[in-house]
């Protein structure tokens, strides 16, 4: 069966520091991968998605970036964090063009 992992689970970072959040999927190949941000425990905002290694599409311009160095690895990064980057970051995957997205456990980021 497929599983999706995210780490760290919780992160507290100062403003201006770099960020690296990692997401990995097991038990499948060539998945579509997604990064979402959930603010205030409610609405989900799609940040990035990827259909293959090195293929990244950005949905919202901001100081975050994403990379996919391996088939089942998706990384969310920032060079300098802002206070407004605080939130709950969710990674998700779907089997290619299939319609259901499956979510990871999330990373809670607090920028101070």
């Amino acid at each position, binding site marked *: 069966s497929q599983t999706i992992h995210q780490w760290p689970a919780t992160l507290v970072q100062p403003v201006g520091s770099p960020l690296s959040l990692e997401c990995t999927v097991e038990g499948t190949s060539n998945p579509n991968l997604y990064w979402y941000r959930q603010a205030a425990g409610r609405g*989900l905002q799609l940040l990035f998605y990827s259909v293959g290694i090195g293929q990244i599409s950005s949905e919202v311009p901001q100081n975050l970036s994403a990379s996919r160095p391996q088939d089942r690895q998706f990384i969310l990064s920032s060079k300098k964090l802002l206070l407004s980057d605080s939130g*709950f970051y*969710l990674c998700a995957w779907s089997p290619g063009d299939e319609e*259901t*997205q499956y*979510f990871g*456990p*999330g990373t809670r980021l607090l920028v101070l």
Partner: protein
Amino acid sequence: AQSVAQPEDQVNVAEGNPLTVKCTYSVSGNPYLFWYVQYPNRGLQFLLKYITGDNLVKGSYGFEAEFNKSQTSFHLKKPSALVSDSALYFCAVRDWGGSARQLTFGSGTQLTVLP
């Protein structure tokens, strides 16, 4: 453009009573519809989906949802609520013509089941 509305921010129901969480949608073509549940500080868990076929869809943990094309609704239901069902519920939609990344989520409904 597609959209989804969850008109209730909060739903309270007594344990053992039936529960309904409402969802209405708007798409240009035929919809793919989904329900997810989120427990505190956790990711979203997939509950059920409607693609085509029978309008009544059964999912995990005893939940079901009814697709109503004329009312453009996809309400989530459960015959007998449990305290452990207390969580945040999200409805999501995308158009048949779109791709998996074009999933639009509602704002969520907080369900509280009272003992």
